[in-house]
């Protein structure tokens, strides 16, 4: 194998591919990155850790085709620090030699035969704008469970119905749901799958910069256990979770008594300040009255803090308490200048959504449902 490639192309491709490689791979050989040079003039990098696979194809001047497996992180480190000159790579016995300008490296080949076969990616089912996809994933995955009591809750439920994608995640204390439109391959597309939240958000981060992300959801039967994402020359697959996701749509309150609208940024800052005195497991208390929202934390002998900010209120006054971190998580990903909070009672879940103007309409594409904390008095 022998090829020549630009330094930037190499370092970008390798860095992207190894980003998902864990430091402690299940099998040592998975610490490698597979380089496949095609005499047609393309070079493919692949990495796989049984959970996520990543491949990227770049153009290169290939003098001789072939495959080698080398340590992924080491190659990424080397590529990042090379001088800005073309890089020549060729096999040299049991080693791979890499030359760039006057610097030379000799890497040891890992056994290609031991490397597992990467899962095949099925056909594209449709595409989503990159920025909307990234935002939606960030908004939803914060609510996914990180614990291990109910493995199914560590996933994001993605439901596709025609041109609408609904993403949903919950950890039993809060629930986030985002709806967005996409361009499906066929208009009668219908699909439900459960993607691990951690890998989904990593994927969104690494592909979101591109204009469009293609999704491939696989067909029934084989290959169904994976979801594939593709943006430009970058392709990645993630294994899916299986099982029956709890029926959670009934959690959204059917009626609303009080609605308050506050400035998102002001609200976040105030909560963050007041929450400083809220010790572990103690809530921040919010008291909504006409024109004002009072935020308090701390009780009795402990340190206390309070702050009042401007707010509108329709309906009866209400006092409600939340876990400050859960509240801040939701507010932080809202992405709208104003926050709308809808309540029924102080013991019932509240719905947080965004809106663009103080007295405008609510934007219901993203809803964050938060269970209140009971408090005395």
């Amino acid at each position, binding site marked *: 194998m022998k090829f020549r490639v630009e330094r930037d192309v190499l370092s970008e491709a390798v860095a992207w591919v190894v980003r998902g490689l864990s*430091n*402690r791979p299940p*099998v*040592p*050989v998975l*610490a*490698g990155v597979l380089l496949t040079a095609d005499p047609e003039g393309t070079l493919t990098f692949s990495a796989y850790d*049984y*959970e996520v696979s990543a491949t990227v194809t770049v153009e290169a001047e290939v003098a001789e085709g072939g495959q080698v*497996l*080398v*340590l992924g*992180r*080491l190659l990424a480190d080397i590529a990042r620090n090379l001088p800005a000159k073309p890089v020549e790579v060729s096999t040299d016995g049991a080693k791979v030699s890499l030359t760039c300008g006057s610097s030379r490296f000799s*890497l*040891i*080949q*890992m*056994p290609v035969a*031991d490397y*597992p*076969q990467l*899962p095949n990616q099925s056909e594209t089912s449709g595409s989503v704008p990159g920025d909307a996809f990234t935002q939606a994933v960030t908004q939803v995955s914060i609510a996914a469970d990180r614990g*291990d009591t109910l*493995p*199914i809750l*560590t996933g994001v439920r993605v439901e596709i119905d025609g041109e609408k994608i609904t993403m949903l995640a919950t950890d039993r204390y809060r629930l986030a749901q985002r709806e967005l439109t996409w361009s499906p391959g066929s208009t009668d597309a219908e699909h439900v799958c459960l993607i*691990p939240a951690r890998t989904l958000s990593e994927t969104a981060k690494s592909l979101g910069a591109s204009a469009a992300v293609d999704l491939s959801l696989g067909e029934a039967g*084989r290959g*169904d*256990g*994976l979801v594939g994402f593709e943006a430009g020359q970058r392709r990645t*697959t993630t*294994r*899916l*979770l*299986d*099982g029956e996701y709890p029926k959670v749509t009934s959690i959204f309150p059917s009626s609303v008594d009080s609605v308050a609208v506050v400035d998102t940024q002001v609200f976040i800052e105030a909560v963050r300040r007041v929450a400083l005195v809220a010790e572990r497991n103690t809530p921040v208390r919010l008291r909504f009255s006409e024109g004002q929202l009072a935020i308090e934390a701390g009780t009795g002998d402990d340190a206390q803090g309070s702050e009042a900010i401007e707010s509108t209120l329709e309906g009866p006054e209400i006092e409600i308490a939340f876990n400050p971190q859960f509240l801040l998580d939701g507010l932080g990903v809202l992405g709208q200048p104003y926050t709308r909070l809808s309540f029924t009672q102080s013991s019932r879940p509240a719905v947080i959504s965004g809106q663009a103007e103080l007295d405008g309409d609510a934007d219901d594409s993203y809803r964050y449902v938060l269970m209140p904390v009971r408090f005395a008095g």
Partner: protein
Amino acid sequence: MSVFDQLVGQPRVVSTLRRASTEPAAMTHAWLFTGPPGSGRSVAARTFAAALQCEGAGGVQVGCGECQPCRMVMAGSHPDVRVVDTDQTFIKVGEARELVLEAQARPSLGRWRVMVVEDADRLNDHSANTLLKSLEEPTARTVWMLCAPSLEDVLVTVRSRCRHVRLGTPSPHAVADLLISRDGIDPSMAHYAARAAQSHIGIARRLATDEHARARRREITSIPTGLASLGDALRAAQDLVDEAGEGAKATSADHAEEQRRELLTQLGADLTARTQPPSVRAHLRRLDDRLKAEARRQQHDSIDAALTDLASVYRDALLVTAGSGLDRVNASEPEQIQLLARSFSAEQLLLALETIGEARQRLIANGAPLLVLEAMMIGLLLPRG
């Protein structure tokens, strides 16, 4: 060659597993394989996993052993088959939690996600309880396979959630046939080894191929007739412990070097380098820890194997005393058996077997090997006169 060929002398089990992997109605989501050591519990689980993932010959002959999924499962590199084996005393709860999370994932290449726990008897209460929920209701395409020596070795709550498959002790003939066909061993040697190993396939193979192992076995089987005085008993105990320690050290030094070399090639590290980069060092440290734990367990296993051999001599003597026509394990050393049968009464032979059994219990309970063996040997002294 079908993967099931490796399951020796278990025709009933093979037919159950074959049926389960071809007929959806015969399939179950959790299995518990039990059987005496050497009967091939983990082999059964692996071959079953291979049969479930097999793609060969259009389902007529599942577990073809030649298609890629079959080979990947048998080599332990199939992404959908997770094999948990531990060299430690217990499978810790953290590991159990990871397994539960992994069991939730869909298979990415094959038809099933298979979770094989090779030492289910090493699940402590806490980690066994962690698995319960997933064992009871795994997702539609996840299969759990647990292996344990007997039903009593796993929690009753785990047991009740699994379909039980019992592997019997294969007949010495079946084991001998395997040694002849698979390892190309001379028939008379194969029959001797299979009988002496009491059908434990791994031990039989070692006896058949390793002169040192045979010599060692002869030494052990000649212990009973040499126990004339207290001094003899103490010496015999000391020899047993020394030999086990040395054996463990010798095998593990070779083994360690081999493992180290294999790991370094897989990591793509330079074998000859004096100092390795930090990421490689971390792998090496983990390997060292594992090898140390393995060596400890090996010493224990080695003493335990010696006690099995020792007990077989008393068993044979008891058969002679009782006039039974059953096959003798030590048919190759009739004089010793006769001598022992003359020196001991049937009752004394039974007591001797019990003494050995008690020593094994004490070793499991982590008794100091030398003390336990000394106490045992003193209990086995030849009656005076």
